[in-house]
C-alpha cells in the first residue's frame, strides 16, 4: 500500500507525539502506583502516620522521626554546601584562567558522576571510623556523617548550575561596570551576582532536591533507628534516619501495612522533590527571559 507524502508525514508526527507523551504516562503511573499502595496505610493509621512512634511489634508506624531526619540532614548539608558551592562557582566562572577551567569543569562533572553507593561505601569505611574516635561518638554512624556525605554529593550540582547562571549574565552588564572604573571583584559583587541570583537560587533548590532524594550513601552512614535524638539538634547521636534510608532498610522485611507506610514515605519524597524541581526550573526560566534582550 502506498501512502501519500502527507499521510506518511502525519503518521510519523503522531508516532513522535506518542513517544513524547511517555514521560507524562510514566509520571502518572509512578504517582498512581505509589499512591494506591500507600492508601491502606492512610486508611488504617490516619493521622498517626505522622507521629514519632515507630514500633513494628505494636503496629505503630509514625514517619515523624524520618521526616525530621530528612530535614535536619539536608539542612546541615546545605549549610556546608551552599556557601562553598557558590564561592567555587564564582571562582570557576569569573576567576579561573581558561586552561584551569577546562580542567576543573570535567573534575566537577566527575564528582557528580561518582555513584552514590561508592560515596556510601567511602562514608562507611573512611568517614565513620574517622568521626567515631575524634568526637568520642558511640559508633560514628550519625546525622553528622550523613550531612557531610550529602554536602559533598550536593556540591557538584550546585557548582555547575551556579556556574552556568553566572556565565549567563550578559557581557555588556560587566563591561559597563568595568568601564566606569570598578575592579573585577566589585563588578562580581555588585553586578554579576545580583543579576545571577535567580539562577543561583535555582541551583540551590536543585541541590536541596537532590539531597532529600539521596538514598544509598545516606543509609549507609546513618544510625537508622526510628528515633529523634534528644536534644533534636544532637548531630552526634547514633539514632535517626531519613525517609529514603527508612525505605531502603525496611523494604526487605516489611509486610502489608508496613510496606504501605513505606510507600507513603515514597509519595512524600516524590511530591516534595517534584515541587522543588519545578520551582528550580521556573527560577531558571526567569533568568533566561530576563537576559534575552540584553
Amino acid at each position: 500500500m502506498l501512502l501519500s507524502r502527507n499521510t506518511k508525514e502525519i503518521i510519523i508526527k503522531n508516532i513522535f507525539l506518542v513517544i513524547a507523551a511517555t514521560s507524562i504516562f510514566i509520571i502518572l503511573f509512578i504517582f498512581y502506583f505509589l499512591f494506591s499502595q500507600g492508601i491502606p496505610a492512610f486508611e488504617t493509621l490516619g493521622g498517626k502516620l505522622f507521629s514519632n512512634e515507630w514500633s513494628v511489634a505494636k503496629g505503630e508506624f509514625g514517619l515523624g522521626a524520618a521526616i525530621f531526619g530528612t530535614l535536619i540532614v539536608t539542612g546541615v548539608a546545605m549549610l556546608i554546601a551552599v556557601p562553598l558551592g557558590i564561592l567555587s562557582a564564582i571562582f570557576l566562572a569569573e576567576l579561573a584562567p581558561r586552561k584551569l577551567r577546562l580542567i576543573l569543569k570535567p573534575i566537577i562533572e566527575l564528582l557528580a558522576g561518582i555513584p552514590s553507593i561508592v560515596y556510601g561505601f567511602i562514608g562507611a569505611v573512611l568517614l565513620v571510623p574517622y568521626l567515631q574516635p575524634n568526637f568520642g561518638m558511640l559508633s560514628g554512624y550519625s546525622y553528622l556523617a550523613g550531612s557531610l556525605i550529602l554536602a559533598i554529593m550536593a556540591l557538584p550540582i550546585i557548582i555547575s548550575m551556579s556556574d552556568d547562571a553566572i556565565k549567563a549574565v550578559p557581557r555588556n552588564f560587566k563591561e559597563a561596570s568595568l568601564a566606569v572604573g570598578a575592579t573585577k571583584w566589585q563588578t562580581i559583587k555588585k553586578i554579576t551576582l545580583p543579576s545571577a541570583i535567580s539562577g543561583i537560587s535555582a541551583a540551590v533548590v536543585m541541590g536541596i532536591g537532590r539531597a532529600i532524594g539521596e538514598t544509598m550513601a545516606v543509609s549507609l552512614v546513618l544510625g537508622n533507628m526510628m528515633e529523634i535524638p534528644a536534644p533534636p539538634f544532637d548531630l552526634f547521636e547514633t539514632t535517626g534516619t531519613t525517609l529514603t534510608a527508612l525505605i531502603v532498610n525496611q523494604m526487605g522485611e516489611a509486610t502489608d501495612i508496613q510496606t504501605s507506610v513505606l510507600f507513603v514515605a515514597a509519595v512524600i519524597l516524590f511530591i516534595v522533590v517534584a515541587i522543588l524541581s519545578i520551582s528550580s526550573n521556573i527560577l531558571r526560566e526567569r533568568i533566561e527571559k530576563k537576559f534575552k534582550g540584553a
Partner: protein
Amino acid sequence: MNLEKIKDSLKKYSSLIFDKENLEIKKIICIFTFIFSSIIAIIGFFSLTNSFYIGDTSLRVILILLAISYIVIIYISIFEIKKRKKIYGILILTIIIFVAAYLLPLLPPNYELRDYEIDATIMKFIINSVFMVIIGVVGASLAMKPLYNYTSKSDEMSAYYVLVVSILLVIYPLIVIVSNIISNGIGGFSWEFLTQDVRKLGTQGGIFPALVGTLLLMIGTALVALPLGLGCAIYLQEYAKKGILTRIISICVDILQGTPSIVHGLFGFAFFVPIFGISVLSGILILGFLTLPIIIRSSEEALRSIPQNIREGAYAVGATKWQAIKTVVLPPAIPGIITGSVLGIGRAAGETAPIMFTAVYFFGAGIPESPFDPIQALPYHLLELTKLIGYKSVEQNAWATALLLLSIVLGMNAIAIIIREKFRVEF
C-alpha cells in the same frame, strides 16, 4: 609629648631599621606573612584530617610568630595610609591571635558535651586545628591588603584568596575518594576476581556474574531509553509548537529528572515486579525510565544547536519534514546525542536503589538465561559487602568492587567527554 612627636620619632626609628628600602621590605614581610599563614592553614587542615595534634608549645610558637609579623605589618603601614579604619581588621586579628596563643594550649584534653546531653566529646586537637585553619585563611587573605596598599585591588586579592581556598576544599574529597579507592582496590584485582563467582558471602571468589549483570543492564537501559528519549527530543524540538501539551511534557521531564532513585525503585516494585518478577526486564525498564530525562535533555540540546537554515535548505529542494530530519538534522546532532546517552547510561550503571527490590540478588543469580531471570550487579554487590564489613573479611573485595564500579562509571564519563570534544561541530 603629643601625637605628632611620637609619629616623628617612630618614623626616625623605622628609617633606621628599614632605610630607603622600606617599600621592598614591606612587600617581603607581607608575602612572608601570607605564606606563613597559608602554611598554618594547611597544617591545621592536615592535623584535622589525620587526627594529630602539633603540641602546645609549637602551637604557641607558631601563633606568636604570626602575631609578630602582623604587628610589623601594622607598624609599617600605619604611616602610609590615610584611613585608619583599614587596618582595624588586621589589628583585631592580631589581638585574637595573641589571646588564642595564650588560651588554646590551656584547654583541657577533651571537652565533654555529654554534660549537655549531646553524645560527643570534642577533642582538643579538633578545636585547635579548626582554629588554625580559620586563622590561616583569614590571615593570609588579610595579608593581601597591605601588599596592595589597601586599594580596591587589595580587597579583590583577598576575596580571590577565599575563592581559591573554597575550590580546593571542593576538590579535596574527590582526591581522597579516588586515591583511596585506587590504592586500596588495585591489590584486590586479579584474574580470579574478575572471572569467578561470588563465594562465601563475598569473602572469597570474584564478581564475574555481577560484572556481566551490570554490562547487561547498561545495554538494556540503552535499548529502552535511547529510542524513547530521542523520539521525545525530536518531537519537542522539531515538531511541537509552543503550547500547553509541550509545556506539560517538559514539566514531566523535569519532574522525572528530579525523582529520587528510591522512588523509581518502589514504583518498579509495585508495577513491574508483579508482572515480570524480580528480573532483568524489570531492572532495565526502571533504569531506562531513570535515564530517559537525561537523554531527552541532551538530545534536545544537540538538535537545538543545528541552525535553522540547514533545515530550510532541505525544504527548498522539496524534502518533507521527516526527510529533512532524517538526512540533514540528525547526522550532525549524533555526537551530542551519543554524549548525553553515554553519560546517562554511565549514571544508570552505578544506581543501586532502583534495582535492589526489582532485579538483583547478592549471589546465586548467575548469568541470566532469559529476560525474566534475576541478575547480579556491581552496585548492589558493593552495598551488600559494605553491610558485611566488620562482620566478615570482605574489605579487599569491597575496595576492588568499588574500583571496578568507579572505573566503569568514570570511564563512561570520560568517553562522553572525549566524544564531545572530538566531534564538536561548529556552525
